[in-house]
């Protein structure tokens, strides 16, 4: 009966017959499916759909990590990618069976043919087709059927679906913001309990290792005594000014900056680890002369930072005056360009005089609807180039900036230029 754990060849044959099947048409093995003893059922299992990349990671023995606080949607991270996790439902039952034999492993035509060659005429194919009414007879002389028992260790009606997604990195700045570095003399004021080392950040941020590492570089987080820190804006300005002042002091050509001299000259003013990091952020290798590596400062990055310094005080500036002050603030030989203000300032050329004011992407709301609202409140009409830096972070491979604008803004043409404005008129 149903609760009998082991079934005999005879039981199986009886059922085959009752079901009006013919043993001769079947391969050699019967698999008896069972629900195992309730104590052996495994309720901790989950099914998860895999793409090629995830399959490769698993077959390669690599680690996959689920990440998410209770208030966040969970993500799955490989070493380099992040996946969004959704649970999908199916109306079918998915019975999970370890070591189930597929047809190919249960004895096939070839085996039967081989056997008939060996002289077992009973299982010949022709005969089996004509044995409809004789199956009872032909069973008699047969060896017992091969019977294996297979356990259904779990039944599923849901499975996880994974989609590659952008890493969720905005939390990183929030975690690092309260402990900004303002110089060694102000370290006493920093709440040490709010410092994060790499492990702690990796636990908290829903991103793969590669994506987190990239972001830490992008936001210029510096490792100080094992903890990741952001430099406070004024402190960064102070250090950068010291560095740039050395150009004139030493009469260096812009592509002949000496790293050793820079660090040596400033190490009494700024901790060496910070000098090293700052030099790395703002310079690139230029030339090797006499075995000495020389560097040059990244012109765009330096000019942009100095523009932010000038724009820092609230309010609008006369554009012409601002551009002059900006030119004066950068090292001699570097050229400022209005295009560098994209994403950090807005210019209004319709007013007299023309004005410019600081408008940083990082100060805008995170929520995309809120952000568009603020953008259109600030300026009624935007060209794609103007608005791009402020919405770039929402763009994905499937939904680029233009698609975002189609979705969240209204397009029109002004003096032959395509501009975007708020979707709903207020």
């Amino acid at each position: 009966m149903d609760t009998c754990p082991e079934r005999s060849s005879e039981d199986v044959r009886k059922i085959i017959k009752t079901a009006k099947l013919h043993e001769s048409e079947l391969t050699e093995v019967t698999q008896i499916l069972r629900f195992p003893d309730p104590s052996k059922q495994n309720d901790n299992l989950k099914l998860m759909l895999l793409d090629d990349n995830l399959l490769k990671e698993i077959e390669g023995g690599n680690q996959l990590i689920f990440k998410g606080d209770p208030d966040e949607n969970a993500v799955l991270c490989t070493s380099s990618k992040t996946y969004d996790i959704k649970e999908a439902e199916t109306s079918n039952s998915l019975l999970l069976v370890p070591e189930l034999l597929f047809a190919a492993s249960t004895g096939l035509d070839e085996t039967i043919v081989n056997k008939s060659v060996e002289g077992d005429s009973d299982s010949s194919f022709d005969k089996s087709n004509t044995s409809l009414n004789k199956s009872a007879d032909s069973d008699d002389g047969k060896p017992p059927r091969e019977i294996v028992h297979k356990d259904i260790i779990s039944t599923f009606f849901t499975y996880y679906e994974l989609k590659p997604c952008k890493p969720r990195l905005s939390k990183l700045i929030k975690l690092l913001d309260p402990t900004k570095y303002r110089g060694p003399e102000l370290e006493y004021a920093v709440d040490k309990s709010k410092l994060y080392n790499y492990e702690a950040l990796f636990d908290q941020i829903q991103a793969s290792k590669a994506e987190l590492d990239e972001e830490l570089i992008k936001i210029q987080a510096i490792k100080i005594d094992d903890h990741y820190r952001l430099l406070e804006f004024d402190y960064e300005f102070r250090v950068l000014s010291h560095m740039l002042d050395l150009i004139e002091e030493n009469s260096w050509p812009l592509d002949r900056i000496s790293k050793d001299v820079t660090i040596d000259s400033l190490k009494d003013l700024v901790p060496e680890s910070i000098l090293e990091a700052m030099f790395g952020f703002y310079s690139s290798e230029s030339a090797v002369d006499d075995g000495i590596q020389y560097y040059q400062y990244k012109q765009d990055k330096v000019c942009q930072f100095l523009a932010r310094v000038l724009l820092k005080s609230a309010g609008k500036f006369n554009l012409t005056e601002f551009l002059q002050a900006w030119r004066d603030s950068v090292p001699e030989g570097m050229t400022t360009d209005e295009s560098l203000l994209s994403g950090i300032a807005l210019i209004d050329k319709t007013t007299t005089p023309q004005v410019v004011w600081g408008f940083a992407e990082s100060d805008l709301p995170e929520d995309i609807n809120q952000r568009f609202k603020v953008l259109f409140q600030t300026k009624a009409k935007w060209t794609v180039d103007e608005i791009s830096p402020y919405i770039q972070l929402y763009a994905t491979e499937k939904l680029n900036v233009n698609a975002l604008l189609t979705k969240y803004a209204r397009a029109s043409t002004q003096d032959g230029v395509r501009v975007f404005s708020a979707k709903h008129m207020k």
Partner: protein
Amino acid sequence: MNHYIDVRTQIPRARQTINNNNIKTETEGGVPEWAIIELQGLIQMKKEDQSGPTVVGDLHYFSRNRHPVLILGHHVLNGKEVKLEQPMAVIEKDDTTSYKVKAIVKKKLLFKSRPKPIISNVSEKV
């Protein structure tokens, strides 16, 4: 139509790790390959005795075309061996913080046709 539910409550800890722990019958990658049997609806078992295993049904294959046939109580189900469009991992919650990959599923036996009742003229105790 698939319908999505939020999974945040099911993965409560900040970080959970999936490790590959290998078990016997491995694929080339060191992870065993298991199978799924997909049925319409769900199997209801009448079961008095709560201990010990319960037989669900007998699975055979036709040698002619390799198609599976499943005898479930008084029904016969004809199915097909199907390669999954996307393979699945079977993951197991180890303790509170980590998952391990128990197996990979690449193929399933799909029984999507309506079960045929067994009409028996002989009284059989099945």
